[in-house]
């Protein structure tokens, strides 16, 4: 009896992903028919690899949106972290040090955004739009506007290497998603992020330190953007000052497709994962089928409107 109710609960839980899974299946079917090489193990792994960077940034953005905020500067934070990593490692210092520094810088920049939003009352949209300029400008200043190459082999291996059949970047993404899943579902802080995003007044009235929660969420997003930066530098084998430009849009798109409510308080790590994969399938599939990148932009836009539109419609039905 108990077993049965548990299984029912699981099905009920899974049902919120049916829409995403159906979209995925349809896309798989369509692209497979159009190109035989689409549905092969190599290509599926390539899709995961392509999804890994904005999958990680999109996760940070999704957690922020659950907390009812945005950070438009994640692309610039990614650029800054990547530049820091490249500068340190190309100067001969150990890769571990470069990675640590990149993560610290990303976290600090995210934290600064969080402090700004929590204490000044400037809307996150405006504040992070402004800090995008500041951070990106600083990237150009410290790099002198030049790409940084000559990175050590161990870092390059990070971009090319495999664990079993999976590229390292994919393994990193999966680990990050698993930790985030546990964090959001099984810790007090994760629950506080949901509560603050759903109703910040009631959260405060329930004894939650709302400002601290907001700052922490921005810090997490900055940290994940830094991981994205490290993965991108390893993949490109160099750091470009314009690296990560407009990645925030893909990050928001992944979260929105993954069913994170733009009103805050609702969303799931699993949904965000599916959102990132769907985005990856669009990018990969359209190339395989032979559309150029301009059509990819159009398709991405349409998918976002569809995904969020379905969500809005579903909520309307509920109320």
């Amino acid at each position: 009896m108990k077993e049965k109710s548990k299984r029912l609960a699981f099905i009920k839980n899974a049902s919120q992903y049916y829409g995403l899974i159906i979209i995925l299946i349809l896309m798989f079917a369509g692209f497979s028919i159009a190109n035989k090489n689409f549905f092969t193990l190599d290509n599926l792994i390539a899709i995961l690899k392509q999804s890994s960077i904005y999958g990680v940034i999109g996760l940070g953005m999704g957690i922020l949106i659950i907390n009812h905020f945005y950070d438009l500067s994640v692309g610039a934070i990614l650029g800054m972290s990547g530049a820091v990593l490249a500068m340190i490692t190309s100067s001969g210092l150990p890769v571990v040090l470069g990675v640590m520094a990149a993560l610290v810088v990303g976290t600090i920049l995210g934290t600064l955004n969080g402090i700004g939003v929590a204490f000044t009352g400037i809307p996150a949209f405006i504040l992070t739009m402004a800090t995008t300029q500041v951070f990106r400008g600083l990237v150009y200043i410290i790099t002198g506007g030049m790409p940084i190459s000559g990175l050590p082999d161990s870092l390059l291996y990070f971009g090319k290497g495999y664990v079993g059949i999976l590229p390292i970047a994919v393994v990193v993404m999966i680990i990050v998603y698993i930790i985030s899943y546990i964090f959001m579902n099984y810790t007090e802080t994760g629950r506080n992020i949901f509560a603050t995003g759903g109703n910040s007044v009631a959260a405060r009235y329930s004894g939650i330190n709302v400002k601290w929660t907001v700052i922490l969420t921005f810090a997490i997003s900055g940290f994940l953007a830094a991981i994205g930066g490290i993965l991108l530098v390893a993949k490109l084998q160099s750091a470009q000052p314009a690296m990560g430009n407009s990645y925030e849009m893909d990050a928001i798109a992944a979260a929105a497709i993954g069913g994170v409510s733009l009103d805050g308080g609702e969303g799931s790590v699993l949904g965000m994962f599916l959102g990132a994969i769907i985005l990856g399938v669009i990018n990969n599939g359209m190339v395989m089928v032979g559309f150029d990148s301009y059509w990819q932009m159009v398709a991405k836009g349409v998918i976002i409107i569809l995904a969020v539109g379905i969500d809005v419609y579903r909520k309307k039905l509920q109320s």
Partner: protein
Amino acid sequence: MADYIIQLKDISKNYGGIQALKDITLGFERGMIHALLGENGAGKSTLIRSLSGVEKPTKGDIIFEGKSTLKLSPKQIHDLGISTVYQEPMQAPHMSVLENIYLGRMEKKGGVWIDKKKMREKLLRLMEDTEIYLDPDTGICKLGTAQRQMVEILKALSSDAKFVIFDEPTSSLTNDETEILFNQIKSMKKRGITVLYISHRMAEIFELCDRVTIFRDGMYIESNYLSEYTSDKLIQTMIGREIGDWFYKKEVKIGDEILSAEKISTGYLKDVSFKLRKGEIIGFAGLVGAGRTEVAKVLFGLDKFTGSIMFENEQYHPKSPRDAMNKGVVLVPEDRKIEGVVHTMNVRENITLPNLKALKKVLFVGRKREAGMGREMMERLKIKASGLRQLVSNLSGGNQQKVVFAKWLATEPKIMILDEPTRGIDVGAKAEIYRIISDLVERGISIILMSSEMPELIALCDGIYTMKDGKITGSLDRREFSEKAILTKIIEED
């Protein structure tokens, strides 16, 4: 046959399961100043909103000068000649006096271009007529409440209003400003305009009004000339009902003093002092805006204050709700939907929200223990939900309120502050909430109850403080309780 300017025929208004107006049939005679009286929740505001078209009655009809206004928009009703002056006028703060007065009906040249000159001329003529002089180009945000009300009066007159409603206009005015307002209202009457005046202040009503209409519990009670009444009789008619004998509080042994507040002041409160003993229920009575919620906010660490509070023989100066909660003081807030529950979360998550620290094992919240707490509280407070996973937004008001009680009970508080705990809750759920409150004091929890409902205060409290304009105006012992005694202490002009 009286000459009514506006008539209500069998008007009812429901909000969900709550009936705010019940079969109201009445008329307002042309050319008089009418007072509308009733306690909080008697249905006055709903009536005003229905007259001005902001809300549509569930059934019935409103006839203004022989024409039904029911299907008209607020703007069309305004154009017909019904204007409303609110306590805090709703205006566009960054636009000028002139623009606000003609908002939505600007004079236009050739149907397109705004004709400021013509509007200005008309406005100046009106200002001379009424002797209300304001700079037409001043921004609304630079004006005080009294001047903004004058803008509303000019607006009403400029659109040839025939029926003007004033909703508690004097509550934030000084005596001088009130007098200016009264002169304006009286001269409106001379112009043949009918006025509906809503206020709690007896003296004002006797000074200004010709007739009075009394509402109680969403029902029309009576209308008559004011000369037929004394202040006492008006209050008696407003209260009307007998104290319900449907609830009796259990006798609880009251312990030692647990909290004493000395001269608490904030921007709003002035020298508020009171005492609370273990297992005691003290009530705060007062009209809307008397400062009851502000007292609650101070105690729950939401507002800064001066003065001193002793709690269990220690200085108590909470810096945040978390601080207050950790010390054993919790608040069931006034606005359940905004302050009480997180609507995106389910019953279990709402109940455990302030208790996650206690439920934590090393780093992680134990799901089993969490569900256990949720289930225990659901049973104890008889929360009617399909299960712990039901979203609170799908629960009835009474059950949402029980969820708020549940989350705090699980923290094992020493003092619970209840701010309008039964607002918007049906009678059955009310009785259950009273039972819960009665159980709480039996367990030695002390209660501070802010309420607008007299029977509730009388039934539950051991002592009552009355408040007005941020000050405590008196206190009553349980033996002295009567609706009349409380209302008199609240309403009396000082």
